[in-house]
């Protein structure tokens, strides 16, 4: 039984079919990349999975139970962590207090939560910034903080929404291995990413969305050359050639 199982997921916004009949599965310990052109519905899928949006149809099962009607905080307690594409630190709280909020999901005692938060911050490389208010972090640091907070909730499945976006190649090379290390501890990861090099390198499997529909699902190397994927990213052949 997969850790996360999605069947026939549908979501409409007025006249726009944002997600159409999506089937998706993530196994325990797996890293799955979710890619697709802009507006393909990737973030909508994340919002549906994590309880921020209610689907119009279809079913999501997480750890064997339906997530219908569950609020985001319930899903978090069940073991689903997520980050936001546009990072959302608690600006006036210190880095440590930001992460402590996540750690409190598993530890009621302040001392235990503090310990957990410090450990996570060391893991993501922010140990030297613990007492700084989150608003004064740089973008790469904010991405790390976003990751640290989600990790502090001790998820079994982590949804990462473009944690590498907006970073330069050096910064990407620093954070990308972190994803592998988190996964090596047994955390399954579903990640949305625009950086193809990173997503192909880190994912065990890649799912491609286009206009809300799944058009490919398989090993990175196979997906990269699938005709429908090439078409979605580069346009159909006759269009590419242009008028004669």
């Amino acid at each position, binding site marked *: 039984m997969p850790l996360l199982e999605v069947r026939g997921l549908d979501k409409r916004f007025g006249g726009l079919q944002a997600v159409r009949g999506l089937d998706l599965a993530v196994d325990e310990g797996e890293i799955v990349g979710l890619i697709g052109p802009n507006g393909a519905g990737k973030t909508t899928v994340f919002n549906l999975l994590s309880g921020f949006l209610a689907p119009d149809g279809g079913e999501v099962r997480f750890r064997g139970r339906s997530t219908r009607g569950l609020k985001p*905080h319930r899903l*978090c307690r069940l073991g689903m962590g997520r980050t936001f594409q546009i990072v*959302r630190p*608690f600006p*006036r709280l210190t880095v440590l*207090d930001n992460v402590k*909020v996540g750690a409190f999901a598993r530890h009621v005692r302040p001392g235990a939560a503090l310990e957990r938060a410090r450990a996570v911050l060391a893991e993501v490389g922010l140990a030297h910034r613990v007492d700084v208010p989150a608003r004064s972090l740089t973008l790469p640091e904010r991405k790390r903080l976003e990751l640290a907070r989600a990790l502090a*909730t001790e998820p079994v499945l982590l949804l990462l929404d473009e944690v590498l976006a907006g970073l330069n190649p050096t910064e990407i090379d620093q954070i990308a291995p972190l994803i592998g290390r988190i996964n090596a501890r047994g955390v399954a990861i579903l990640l949305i990413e625009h950086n193809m090099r990173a997503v192909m390198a880190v994912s065990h499997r890649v799912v491609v969305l286009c206009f809300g529909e799944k058009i490919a699902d398989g090993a990175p190397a196979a997906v990269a050359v699938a005709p429908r994927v090439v078409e979605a990213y580069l346009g159909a052949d006759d269009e590419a050639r242009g008028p004669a």
Partner: protein
Amino acid sequence: MTWIGLGALAVLLALPAVASPYLTTVCTLIFFYGYLGQAWNLVGGYAGQLSAGHAAFVGVGGYTATMLSLEAGLTPWIGMWVGGALAAALGGGIGYLGFRFGLRGFYFVLLTVAFAELLRVITSNVDAVGGALGLYITFTGDPWQFQFQDTRVYYYVALALMVGATLVAWLLERRRFGAYLAAVREDESAAEALGVNTFRVKLLAMVLSSFLTGIGGTFYAFYLFSLQPGTMFGIPLSVEIIIRPIVGGAGTVAGPILGSFILTPLAEVSRLYFGQGGWHGAHLIVYGLLLIGVVLFLPEGAYPRLARALRRRGR
């Protein structure tokens, strides 16, 4: 900071022995408004849910304890808990409506003001609770009836209220609930994603805050010996409650107290000098100017700035 607080408390405990009755009265008001400010601070400061109708809870608490005392002979020492419970129920009801339907910012402000105004109009028109004339408490000087010959007793009761509410805030700050309040204030969606039941956290903050405010209502009624719908439920009282923590530093443990020590004497002095000769209400102009100054120069309030300055000197 803890040592400064304990030192100040020792001074305040000894003060009535040497202070004039007028100073004692001003201090009593400082403590009482500091208490109300601290109660508001739990939901308005820490949780960032701007209730602008907290007078509703003062009114419900005050009217409940007074009616129970006048009609049933129940001592206000017990009535205050009944009043607090009813205020908490009202706070829970308002919070449920507001938070269930996702009212934020100005919309939540309007909801809370609407409830306070509603209660003001209702009490003005129901003769059973005194109507527009309100209720009057006959002074007997019986401590069992929350009445004291010696005004210094009010001083100590108000001080105990303020210290008690501050202790509640101080304890919450150090616990998971305090961290969750701050998370809700800073970013609700992010808080949800981190396992915070934001609806429950906001509702609990509202219930706790309105409970404490309702208890304050009993003190207010039995300190003034009279209750009018306008003074107990009116917008001016709601403003008095909010402005101190905002000036002192909303969402900080010392903010409401500092704010009350700044604003209450200011209000007293301006009442003293402008109270006659058509200058009635001049303290409201002072409030307005001060609020503009705080928003412009100290958006976090006075306490965070003071704490930073003290820490720098300590180094």
